[in-house]
Each structure stands twice: as C-alpha cells, then as structure tokens.
C-alpha cells in the first residue's frame, strides 16, 4: 500500500523563465523522463498567452519527445479557461495529438478564471479531447461534478478533496472518470492516497481511481 509506480508530473509555476515560457522546465522533465521512462510521465506546461511558443512546445514535447499531455494553469497565467482567443488554440493542438489536457481549477480567485464550469465550453468545442479538471474545482467540487455529468470527455482529479467528496463524484459520474492526484509537494501523497482508501466505494473503484483510469487515458501498456 502507498507505493507509487509512476507519476504524472509537470513544471511548477516557480519554474517559469524570464521569457515567461516553461522551455527550461519542460526540458528538465524530458531529461527526467529519459532516466526513468516508466515512472516519470510528464505533461508539457505552456503559457497560452505566448501562442507561438505554446504550440511549438506542444509539438516538440508531445509530438516528438512523447510527453503524455498538456498542462495549463488559468490562475497562474491569467486567462479564462474558455477563452476562445487564448485557450482554444492550445486545446485544438492538444486534441490533434490525441493526448489529454490537465487544467488547474479552483476557487474563483483571480476573477473566476479557474472556475471548473468553464471547462464545459472546451469540452463542448473539442469533444474528442480528454480534459482533466485539476483538484476537482477545490471548494467548487460540486460545480466540477456537475460539468462532468454534462460532458463525457471530462475527468476529475482528486487532490485536496475529501473522501466524502470523492465518493460523491464517483456516485454521480462513475469511478472510471475519477483519477487520483496528490499535487505533491503542495499535497501529501500518503494523505491523498489514504483518502481514496477511506472512500465509501468498492475496492475495484478504488483501484480504478488509483491508477487504472489514468493508465487508460494515457494509453499506458
């Protein structure tokens, strides 16, 4: 119990370069993946405001270096999740490469840019793109669950949510659309894993959340 076979990871905000790109941090992840390819499963983090760089990064790190998806952070980078001008080109490029997109969501700080319901617009516009709602909307978890009920291509990630809330999500959208996350080092893996084990759901559902689902989404062998 509590042993982690692999982790999906991405660059933190603190690694942003002076040019406001994540080029160096993404390259660091590429090197890390090469050292432990079965355990480090990176997502390329992009700043969608820098469209050219973002699209080039997605092509380079996902298309060529085989990263497993794309991460965007609407609060850190200050854009609305459903911005047609800023977010849609990133979603389009991600969908084209058939990998998922992880989106930070949370309380409506920063003018509500990161509200989970906004993911619904992306899910509607890009029905073939798998969208992972990070932190399940934090305190807006009921909104996250609601929008996930509307769109089958939305997945919920569990970090910082309680066992009751995770079980609630499973009851409403099914265990196959909930994935475990720790948000380490901001979250504590021992605690976040324990939450899944404490959920009032079946052992099979727990196993799906703790790895089965993300393996399916990322096409892991």
């Amino acid at each position, binding site marked *: 119990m509590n042993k982690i076979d692999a982790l999906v990871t991405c660059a933190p905000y603190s690694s942003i370069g002076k040019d406001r790109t994540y080029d160096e941090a993404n390259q660091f992840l590429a090197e890390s993946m090469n050292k432990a390819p079965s355990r480090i499963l990176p997502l390329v983090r992009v700043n969608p405001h820098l469209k050219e760089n973002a699209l080039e990064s997605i092509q380079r790190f996902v298309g060529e270096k085989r990263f497993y998806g794309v991460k965007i952070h609407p609060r850190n980078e200050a854009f609305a999740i459903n911005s047609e001008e800023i977010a849609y080109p990133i979603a389009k490029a991600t969908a084209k490469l058939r990998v998922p997109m992880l989106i930070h969501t949370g309380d409506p700080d920063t003018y509500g840019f990161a509200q989970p319901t906004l993911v619904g617009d992306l899910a509607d516009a890009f029905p073939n793109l798998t969208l992972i709602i990070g932190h399940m909307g934090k305190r807006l978890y009921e909104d996250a669950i609601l929008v996930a009920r509307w769109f089958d291509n939305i997945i919920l990630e569990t970090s910082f949510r309680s*066992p009751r809330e995770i079980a609630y999500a499973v009851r409403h959208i099914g265990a196959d659309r909930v994935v475990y996350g720790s948000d380490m080092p*901001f979250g504590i893996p021992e*605690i976040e894993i*324990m939450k899944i084990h404490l959920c009032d759901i079946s052992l099979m559902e727990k196993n799906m959340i703790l790895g089965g689902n993300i393996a399916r989404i990322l096409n892991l062998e």
Partner: protein
Amino acid sequence: VRKMIDGHAFLGKSIYMEQSSYDLILKMDRLGLKATVVIAPPPGPFYEDANNFIREKAIEFPDRLIPIFRTNPHLEGEPERVRIALTDQGFRGIQLDPKNDGYGVGNKIMKPIIQIAKDLGVPVYIHSGDSIFCPIKAVADYASRFEKVNFITNFSQRAYKVAMKKNNLYLMTRPFPTLMFKRKNKTSLDIDRLIFTSDAPIGSLELELKRVELSSLKQEAKDKIFGGNLKRIMEIN
C-alpha cells in the same frame, strides 16, 4: 491509556450528514480517543431537537462526549435557552454558525449570547472563513471586544496570521497543517492555540490523525493540541 480529545465533531442526523453515538464511540475506541466534543449538525434554523439529542448522548456517555450547545441568535428567547443549557443541562460551551444561520459576525443579536458565555466562563465555537458572513478578520475583531471569552474558530494560513495576534482566539486544526510544521513555519506555529479537530463525519478522523503523525510533532506538542489546550479553556480534567 486513551488521552486524545477531538475538539469538534458532529453528532446526530441532518440532510447533510449522519453520525450516531455508536459509530462515533466505536471509531474513538478503534483510533484511541478519550473524548470528543460533539455539536449538532447544520442546517438550522431550529436546533432544539438536535441539541436535545446531543444532551441525551452526553448523559449516556459522560466520560466520552463533551456537549456543545448549538445556538441560533436570531430566535426569540435564545439567550435564556443558552443560559439554561449551560447551567442546568451540562453543555460545556456554545457554537455559533453565522454562515448557516444568516447573520454577520458582529451583529448585535450575538451580544446577549456572548455575554452569557463571558459570565459563565465557557468557550464559544464560531464558524469562520468560507462566507462573507464570517471572515476570519471579523471573528478576530469580535474576539478583541470580548477579551475574557475564549473563541474557537476554523484554521487556515490566513486565519493563523490573524488569530495569533489575539490571545483569546484558538484554531481548530482540520485540515491539520502538516506541511506548515514540516516546513518554514515550524517554529512560528503557536502550539498553545491549536485544538485538534476532525469535523467528523464531514472530515475524517483517520486522515487527521495521519496528518498529525506525518507532521513529526513532539509528544509535548501533541499533548497540548490533542486536549491539553481544550481542557485548559474548558476547565475540565
């Protein structure tokens, strides 16, 4: 020997939650808790039946359950009910929930009730943090108007910064600040002002205990957080 006290859990049934005394005490026994502070669950506006249930269970398990009277200051005659609860019915403190019952912290309807808490020397639990009705700053300001009353409110990093300037403001630990202990704030956290709480069944007692375990606290600190501080302000043995 069981020594730990959970400073805040719900007991009873509402549309939000259900926790029986049987389930609670079974869990306390399994996890090594001596006693739990029990409070009626929201929503209101009327808590008479829920408080009576708390009272009955506290009589049934006098060494294990510490009853707190949940009060809605909007209700006519509530100060008198609070007084009777504290003097004749065994309640050891009161709970105010501005968010659920719809009033801002500092509203004049609170004053007669806080005055009773002051007269009788009992602590006041006051919900804070996640509503415009009860920001932590308002709770801290209110606490400074009643310096002889001990207030117990919700933890957050922001709450911690505000509360530590008020000597009569204590913080419930859920979710326990494991990383604050392990990282930069280790030396600045005032152990004497923290009260271990689970918020069960909304929160998880198992998780909170695990969070404490991972924080690598010394036993002396644990003793204070797990009951020492609460015993001091409730004047219980």
